[in-house]
């Protein structure tokens, strides 16, 4: 048995050595054909939307797109193996990636960068996201994504307006080690500090499980029945918190501001059950990433280090506006 295994190992090494030379030849292909790899952060609607943007622009420009497997959960240990295996098929000129950790992705991406592949980070970033000053992590061409802290601050202001600048507010978030979501919480906390009569009663983490978000929000409403406003920081938090408010029968009595525009939340807004929905622009992020990547690779254009497509706010007033329809994740 062990003998067989040893033979296998030896065969593998010989195989791979000889094949390595073969693989070399494969990388020299027509220069005019550009291939981009889209590496999402996790399997959720936000990134499915982004993929659509990537594909749309790529088709328009005649760029090849490879979409990597969607990771089952959020984390470098899931994402990096997928990234490396997908790159191994060769011919990738540029990677559009949502890094799942600010530090853990630096080394693997640097390795690919050194091989000559360009990198653009989308939605999430490396280090502090500032690639304009020289650092270990400043090699990506650009960060294209939302300004999460700004979004958090703006939500805080809107929510404060809605509850009459006084009362208790509560935050349901997903995961304390995801940079984008934590940015939203941070921005919200800063924003709410501007209003001395508003008190933040707690932040819960549902670990990306919607049912947990419901449980937590209901318990928060039980503990502080006079909560006036709730901020939910992503798809799962939003849907979960919304369910909780429905369950508690407090629709209308509690103002709900949510992040990410899923069909469910938009419908809730239409019915007047949710008061504000922030839509990031995943489609546009993907679209812009391909556009800038193409400009850089094809025309040698300078790419800005940061591209922020901004947000759209769905409110009861504009929700039926057909122009807004494009920002719904579906």
């Amino acid at each position, binding site marked *: *048995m*062990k003998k*067989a*295994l040893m033979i*296998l190992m030896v065969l*593998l*090494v010989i*195989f*791979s*050595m000889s*094949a*390595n030379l*073969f*693989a*070399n030849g*494969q990388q020299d292909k027509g220069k005019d054909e550009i291939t981009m790899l889209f590496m999402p952060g996790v*399997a959720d609607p936000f990134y499915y939307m982004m993929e659509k943007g990537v594909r749309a622009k790529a088709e328009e420009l005649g760029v090849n797109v*490879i979409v*990597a*497997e*969607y990771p*089952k*959960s959020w*984390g*470098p*240990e*899931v994402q*990096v*193996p*997928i990234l*490396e*295996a*997908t790159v*191994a*098929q*060769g011919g990738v000129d540029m990677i559009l990636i949502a890094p799942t*950790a600010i*530090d*853990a992705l*630096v*080394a*693997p991406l640097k*390795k690919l*960068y*050194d*091989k*000559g592949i360009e990198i653009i980070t989308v939605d999430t970033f490396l280090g502090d996201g500032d690639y304009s000053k020289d650092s270990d992590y400043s090699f990506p061409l650009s960060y294209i994504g939302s300004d999460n802290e700004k979004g958090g601050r703006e939500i805080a202001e809107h929510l404060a307006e809605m509850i009459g600048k006084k009362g208790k507010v509560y935050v349901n978030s997903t995961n*304390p*080690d995801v940079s984008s979501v*934590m940015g939203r919480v941070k921005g919200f906390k800063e924003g709410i500090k501007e209003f001395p009569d508003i008190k933040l009663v707690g932040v819960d*983490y549902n670990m990306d499980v919607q049912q947990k978000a419901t449980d937590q929000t209901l318990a928060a409403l039980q503990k502080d029945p006079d909560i006036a406003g709730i901020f939910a920081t992503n798809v799962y938090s939003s849907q979960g918190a919304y369910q909780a408010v429905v369950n508690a029968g407090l629709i209308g009595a509690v103002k709900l501001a949510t992040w990410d525009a899923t069909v469910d939340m938009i419908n809730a807004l239409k019915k007047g059950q949710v008061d504000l929905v922030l839509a990031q622009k995943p489609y546009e992020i993907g679209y812009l990433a391909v556009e800038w990547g193409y400009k850089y690779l094809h025309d040698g254009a300078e790419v800005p280090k940061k591209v922020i497509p901004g947000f759209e706010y769905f409110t009861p007033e504009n929700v039926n506006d057909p122009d807004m329809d494009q920002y719904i994740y579906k």
Partner: protein
Amino acid sequence: MQNLNNHTRTGLLLKIGRQWALLFLFIELIFFSFMARGFLSLNVFQIIFFFGTAVFLLGTAELFAIITGGIDLSVGYVMGLATIVSAKLIVAFTKTGMGPGLSITLGILLTLVIGLLPGYVNGMLISKLNVPPFIATFSMLGISHGVSELLIAEKAAKNLPQLANTIGNGYFLYYSKGIGFSFFSRPEVARRVKVVEILPNVVVIAFILIAVFAFILNRTKFGQHTYAIGGNRDAAIRSGINLNRHIIKVYMLASFLATIAGVLYTLKYVTGKADAGASSLLDSIAAVVIGGASLYGGKGTVWRTILGGLIIAVLETGLRIMGIPTFDKYIIVGIILITAVLVDQFFPERTYKE
């Protein structure tokens, strides 16, 4: 009289049946060599082993528990705990002004000692208090997860020394045209100059350790007793094996291996993460079972477990290179796992403990 039928099966078929896992791996390799562009390369095999280390280590950990007829569900989150503890310790030591080499060494050693604790508790619960292994280790899963999240919530361990990254993502041997071979450190070359990297450090470390544990299982009294307990618990007790003590040791060993996997994670990803090992848990159990161990205990070997892990890793990597759409891939992997175990059931008379 199924045994009889099996004995009368033709020798060749039986031999293939006994080695079906190996055969399966070969079929995978051949299939992907044809179907997946770029699969057949040094790089891809290094990827398979590099990212497989966690499953190999956790699988070996799981194997010890499974041979005794138990199971250890906590290894994934014990690994997560280890990533956090080691990252925090290393950062703390560095802050006191210690050199990076020393703080990494100390941090890792201390983590390895702490890593014995969950295993000790598991072992005590299982042996002394008769808690079923599934529940004892499931509880430990929750406890390690909770402790990890408490340690890391809003205060992640950041800025590990650069050396950690160099070890974790470095290779044993580099080759580049003009410069020749260099050990341990990547030659300074311009971007896009090809450097051949051979043998990732992490893989070397993991396989040395796995070899040690394979030796323990195969060649020592401890290993022999582990099989004995799984084969026939009463017989083991009557022959004078101290069952309780042995079970405690086995779970400590599993926990220790999980901690090693966690430490290697910290070096690879220069960060700690509570659910770092969560995604590898079910894969590692599957690796052990595909490797021919029985969940009722008494059989299984380390090499077979690695083989089982490879079958999964090659499948995952190959499908990724082929570019199978995500959701289809989930389905295909499930079907192939079931097929693998079904094939196994048709050759029940194997003796894996050769």
